[in-house]
């Protein structure tokens, strides 16, 4: 039976709930879980002040509530197990996670999976800025695992990404894959502007045409061998049109202010 955490009180100020992670809840009964701490602004409170716990952790945590937008750090640092969320969640979802899975039936906001190294995050709604990114000052962001967002994301998706996969069903904002070192970003909808600025290596793929920086140059139109494999993998989550599997892609290389070894692939029909 999964552990169910149902929200019973809304936070007035931001809440940090990094104890809501399988790594902390293993072997804890419902009463134990309610006694675990969380931060409500600057006060240390208990999970039980805001959530009722039922069941016991068997590998899955169910988190439900009408007002989870202020609840930050859900699943931060987790290494195994599953968190299923019903509702919109706060910042830093799955920050630094190394394994396991987070499923959100709702929207997320800024900093989804920053600096994560493994595991999987799937958001059925939208996410915010800096999905799968580095925190400010760091030169390396996400290094592994995958983030799938069905809706749209905003700026700096995959900032300084060095490994793993980010796939966006809708549109992305500006600076997608900025300073990217390696890894893959798929945007099935529209890319914003300045995609791949400062990227060294890695691949950014979109199914729509996009404005590119003057430091990206067209190299060829072709069918990359790995595209079918990737798209088949994505088709388990997203509806992937048949023509994308069969089609050709325009390849641009850049960023020429860096190594010029990154690529942007735009579906060409």
């Amino acid at each position: 039976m999964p552990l169910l955490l149902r929200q019973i009180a809304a936070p007035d100020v931001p809440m940090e709930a990094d104890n809501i992670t399988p790594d902390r809840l293993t072997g804890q009964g419902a009463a134990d879980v309610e006694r675990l701490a969380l931060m409500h602004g600057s006060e240390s409170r208990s999970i039980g002040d805001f959530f009722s716990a039922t069941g016991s952790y068997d590998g899955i945590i169910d988190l439900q509530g009408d007002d989870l937008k202020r609840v930050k750090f859900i699943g931060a640092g987790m290494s195994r197990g599953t968190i299923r969320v019903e509702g919109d969640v706060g910042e830093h979802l799955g920050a630094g996670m190394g394994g396991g899975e987070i499923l959100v039936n709702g929207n997320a906001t800024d900093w989804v999976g920053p600096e994560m190294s493994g595991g999987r995050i799937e958001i059925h709604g939208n996410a915010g800025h800096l999905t799968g990114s580095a925190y400010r000052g760091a030169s390396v962001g996400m290094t592994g695992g995958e983030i799938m967002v069905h809706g749209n994301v905003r700026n700096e998706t995959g900032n300084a990404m060095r490994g793993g996969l980010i796939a966006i069903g809708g549109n992305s904002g500006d600076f997608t894959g900025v300073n990217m070192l390696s890894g893959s970003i798929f945007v099935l909808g529209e890319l914003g502007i300045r995609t791949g600025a400062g990227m060294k290596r890695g691949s950014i793929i979109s199914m729509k045409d996009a404005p590119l920086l003057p430091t990206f140059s067209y190299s060829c139109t072709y069918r990359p061998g790995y595209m079918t494999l990737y798209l088949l993998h994505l088709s388990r989550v997203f509806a992937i049109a048949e023509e994308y599997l069969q089609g050709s892609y325009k390849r641009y290389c850049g960023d020429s202010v860096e190594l010029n070894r990154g690529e942007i692939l735009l579906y060409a029909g």
Partner: protein
Amino acid sequence: MTECIQLAGGKVYDPANGIDGEVRDLYVEQGCMVETPSSSPRTIDVSGMVVMPGGVDIHCHIAGPKVNLARKLQPEDHRRDPHPGTEHTRSGAGGTVPSTFATGYRYATLGYTTAMEAAVTPIGARHTIEELHDTPVIDKGFYVLLGNNIFLQQLIRDGRKEEFRQAVAWWVNATKAYTTKLVNPGGDEPWKGKKNSNVKDIDEKSDFIPVSPRQVIDAFVDTVNELGLPHPPHIHCNNLGHSGNFQTTLETMKTAGDRRAHLAHIQFHSYAGELGKNPKSASREIAEYVNDHPNITCDVGQVMFGKSTIMTADAPLAYMLRGFKKGKWVNADTECESGCGIVPFSYQEHIYVHALQWAIGLELFLLSKDPWRIVLSTDHPNGGSFMSYPKLIRLLMDREFRREEIKRVNQKAINSTILNELEREYTLNEIAIITRAGPARALNLSNKGHLGPGADADITIYDEMADKEAMFNAPRYVIKSGALIIEDHEFRRDYYGKLLHTEPGYDESIVAEVRPFFENYYSIEFPNYAVDDSYLHDHEVIATV
């Protein structure tokens, strides 16, 4: 808030007073060590524990414009090492360049009670003093950068020795400094004015002001000794980090002749080999010269593996280091006075050069014959954080540990050194010298580095342990100026130490000489330049010698 305290039954290491591990009682009253207290003391049983004077760091970078710029630069380094506050102490951020509060408290948790910021531009002195005021527990001072000062170089060029001496004295007063600092003398002008080049030889003259580094070094050694500043000129030699630079280092020391001079982070200046190729160790040549010349003191600038931050007034060096990874880099030019470079860095065991630097530092420690003149330092945070001092102490004290560590690093580097042959193990008494008594003597801080009557009651008490790293990492008690700051490893009160500075006499008429230059080439008004006494708060003027 100072108490009368009896420290009962501890093993005392007080090398300045010839006490080497004797069990004896010590008394503290009114912030000082006393023979017998006048009131009845609180007794603390420290039997079985090791009692030493508080540590003295002779060379570190902990406050001022470049340090703060390095702090701003690296949120990622702070984020991974938060420093929570307590009921008594402020919170802060750690990492290689901690916030001021974290710096003071962390020095205290290693048993250090005095630290000297080693490079401050004169125009940044006010900033430095403000930061030092927010650096708790420790007493502190700083060395003022004058070696690339254009006005002073012009006086050297013109042979105006007397005016030079007066001007140096004026600058030390105007900035509330402890002594003068030379960094890569002569290197600023080629850097700023000649498309990022550098001076390469101690006798190379600049086109702009035809003065060589040797002339600058000679002038400062002469003047600072004549002025009797408590600490001689603190010299960062030319060619830092370059293969074959040990010749420059030897020439620098020879220039000093038999006059007092301090060579900073000498490890970085002890490289043989050909310029542009891999360095080799020249630790024997350097150690020999230092051993034979009692006028020379030095600190090692040991490299410790892991994260560091290069921050230096030697801007061309920082630019060269930036070239390796092309990561973030800071250059900051200070008008008429200095350059500055900052590069986040990481020393790695498997890299030949890094392993060699590590080995050379250890060789210098182990080959040194007079512990009083070689001071433990990592040139924090250049060679590594001061937080790695306990590990460094273990490397020096524990041969078996050292052997294990040697095995983990680049063997090609080790094989080009004699580190494996060096059997020496430092004793607790020698550690007390290189971390306390020696630097205090080199700084002429007669009230520090010892526990005799009249000394400042800056005391560290450790549980004696076989693992010296663990031991030096966590003193059980730390007493600063008679106040019990740390008790049973916990902070029991907050305390702010004082600024240590010196006030050499000078002739007021020199102001009329400096002022016109200043009005032409500086961007602030002359009367707003000198740091006035309102910035001093708690301070102590250390007498000239």
